[in-house]
C-alpha cells in the first residue's frame, strides 16, 4: 500500500501547525478496502510525535459506518465530556487533496484480547477492567446528544433486530437456532427507555488497555444514537469473552461489577435481566455477520472470510446455552 498522500498531508499539517517539521514514517496498520489506518511519525517543534491517520482515500466509507469527519466530531465531543479517547489533532479538508479523514494522537496500549486475557503483565489490571468499562460507558452515555443529533442517526433495539432479520432472510439459508433466537428476542429487545450516544462496537479490539488500565476507547465508526444497553450487552457477548466464558464482561469481569460502576458514575441503574437480551442479541448479530462473511468470501475468495463463515456455529452454541439453558 503506497503512502502517496504523504506530500499533501505534510502540506496540510504545515499550514495548520506553525511548528510542524516533517513526516518521518508512515506504516499502514489495518483497514478495509475503503478505509485505512496509518501510524504516522512526525517531527513537530523539534520533537517526535506519534500520530494516527484515519483515512478514506476515495472519500467513501462503508454504508453502516459514519463519515470520518463525523467520527472526529463525536470523538472530540466525548473527550470534552471527560471520556478516554485519543485527541483529534487535525481533520482533513477537501482542498488538502489527501482524501477524507483525520489525524489523532497515537496512545500506548494493547488491543489484542488474547494478550490482555492471558499475559502476566495484565494480571493485576484484569480484576479492575469491568469497573473501568462501566465508568467509561457511563461517561459516553451521559454526553449531551443535542449537538450530535444532526450528524448521527437513531437506531434502537427493535430496529436493529428487524434489520438483521432482513439480512438473515436475504441469505435464504435458514437455521433453527437463529429462528429460535429471533423469536425469543422479538418480545424482549424493547424500545429504549432513554436515547443516548452509543459507541456501537464496545469490545476487545477497540479497547486500548495498558498494565495501568483502560487507556482509550477506539474505533467510533459504528457510533449512533440508541439504547445504552447495546454497549453494555456487546462487551458481554460470548464471542468477545475469548474462551473465558465464566467471566461475562470481555472474559475479564463480572456483569455486576460493570453495572455497579456504570451506576456509580451516573449511568442508569440497570439489572442483569435488563442486559441479558442484549447479550443474546450480540450473539445473534455476530452469527448473522458470520453469514455475511461467507457472502464476502463468495466475491473475494478469502480463506479468512470462508472460515469466519463457519463461526456461525459458535454463536448457535452460545444462543442455545443462553436461551434454552438459562446461562449468561
Amino acid at each position, binding site marked *: 500500500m503506497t503512502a502517496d498522500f504523504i506530500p499533501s498531508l505534510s502540506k496540510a499539517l504545515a499550514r495548520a501547525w506553525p511548528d510542524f517539521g516533517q513526516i518521518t514514517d508512515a506504516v499502514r496498520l489495518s483497514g478495509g478496502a475503503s478505509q485505512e489506518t496509518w501510524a504516522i511519525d512526525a517531527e513537530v517543534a523539534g520533537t517526535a510525535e506519534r500520530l494516527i491517520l484515519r483515512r478514506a482515500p476515495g472519500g467513501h466509507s462503508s454504508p453502516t459506518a459514519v463519515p470520518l469527519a463525523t467520527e472526529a466530531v463525536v470523538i472530540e465531543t466525548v473527550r470534552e465530556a471527560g471520556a478516554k479517547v485519543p485527541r483529534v489533532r487535525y481533520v482533513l479538508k477537501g482542498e488538502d487533496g489527501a482524501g477524507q479523514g483525520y489525524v489523532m494522537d497515537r496512545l500506548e496500549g494493547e488491543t489484542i484480547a488474547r494478550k490482555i*486475557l*492471558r499475559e502476566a503483565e495484565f*494480571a493485576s489490571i*484484569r480484576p479492575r477492567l469491568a469497573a473501568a468499562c462501566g465508568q467509561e460507558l457511563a461517561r459516553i452515555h451521559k454526553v449531551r446528544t443535542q449537538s450530535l443529533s444532526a450528524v448521527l442517526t437513531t437506531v434502537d433495539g427493535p430496529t436493529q433486530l428487524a434489520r438483521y432479520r432482513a439480512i438473515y432472510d436475504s441469505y435464504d439459508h*435458514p*437455521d*433453527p*437456532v437463529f*429462528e*429460535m433466537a*429471533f*423469536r*425469543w428476542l422479538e418480545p424482549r429487545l424493547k424500545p429504549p427507555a432513554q436515547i443516548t450516544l452509543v459507541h456501537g462496537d464496545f469490545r476487545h479490539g477497540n479497547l486500548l488497555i495498558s498494565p495501568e488500565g483502560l487507556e482509550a476507547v477506539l474505533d467510533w465508526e459504528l457510533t449512533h444514537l440508541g439504547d445504552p444497553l447495546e454497549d453494555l450487552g456487546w462487551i458481554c457477548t460470548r464471542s468477545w469473552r475469548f*474462551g*473465558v*466464558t*465464566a*467471566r461475562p464482561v470481555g*472474559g475479564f469481569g463480572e456483569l455486576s461489577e460493570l453495572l455497579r460502576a456504570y451506576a456509580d458514575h451516573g449511568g442508569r441503574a440497570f439489572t442483569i435481566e435488563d442486559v441479558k437480551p442484549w447479550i443474546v442479541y450480540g450473539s445473534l448479530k455476530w452469527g448473522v455477520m458470520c453469514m455475511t462473511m461467507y457472502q464476502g468470501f463468495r466475491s473475494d475468495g478469502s*480463506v*479468512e472470510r*470462508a*472460515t469466519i463463515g*463457519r*463461526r456461525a*456455529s*459458535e454463536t*448457535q*452454541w452460545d*444462543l*442455545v446455552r443462553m*436461551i*434454552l439453558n438459562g446461562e449468561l
Partner: protein
Amino acid sequence: MMDQPSIVELVEAVRNFLEERALPELKGHTKFHARVAANALGIVARELTEGPAAFAREAARLRALTLGDGTAAELNRLLCGMIRDGRIALDDPRLVAHLEATARDKIAIDQPGYAEPRTAQP
C-alpha cells in the same frame, strides 16, 4: 473404490505440510492466512469423519419433529418455518433437544474445544 490414501489422510497430509513445513517459512499476513487455511482443513477432516453420523442423527430428529418427508435440507426449512410461525413452542422438549444436539454436533466439527469452558485467568 479409490486407492489409498483415504480422503481424510490426504487432507491431514496437506494440513501437516502447511503447519509443519510452510508456516515456519512464512511471515506477516501470509503466515496468518496459512494458519487459517490449516484450521479450515481441520474442519474438513472432522466433517469427513464425524459429519455422516451427525447428519443422519439430525435428519432422524427432523423427521420426528416435522412429521414430514423429504431431504434433511427440506425438513430443516420446514422446521424453521414452524419456529417462525409459532407452530412449535420454543420450550417444546423435542425442539430443545434437537437444537442442543445439532449445535453440539456442529461446534464439534467447526471448533472442538469451544464448548468446553476454559479456566478463567486469575
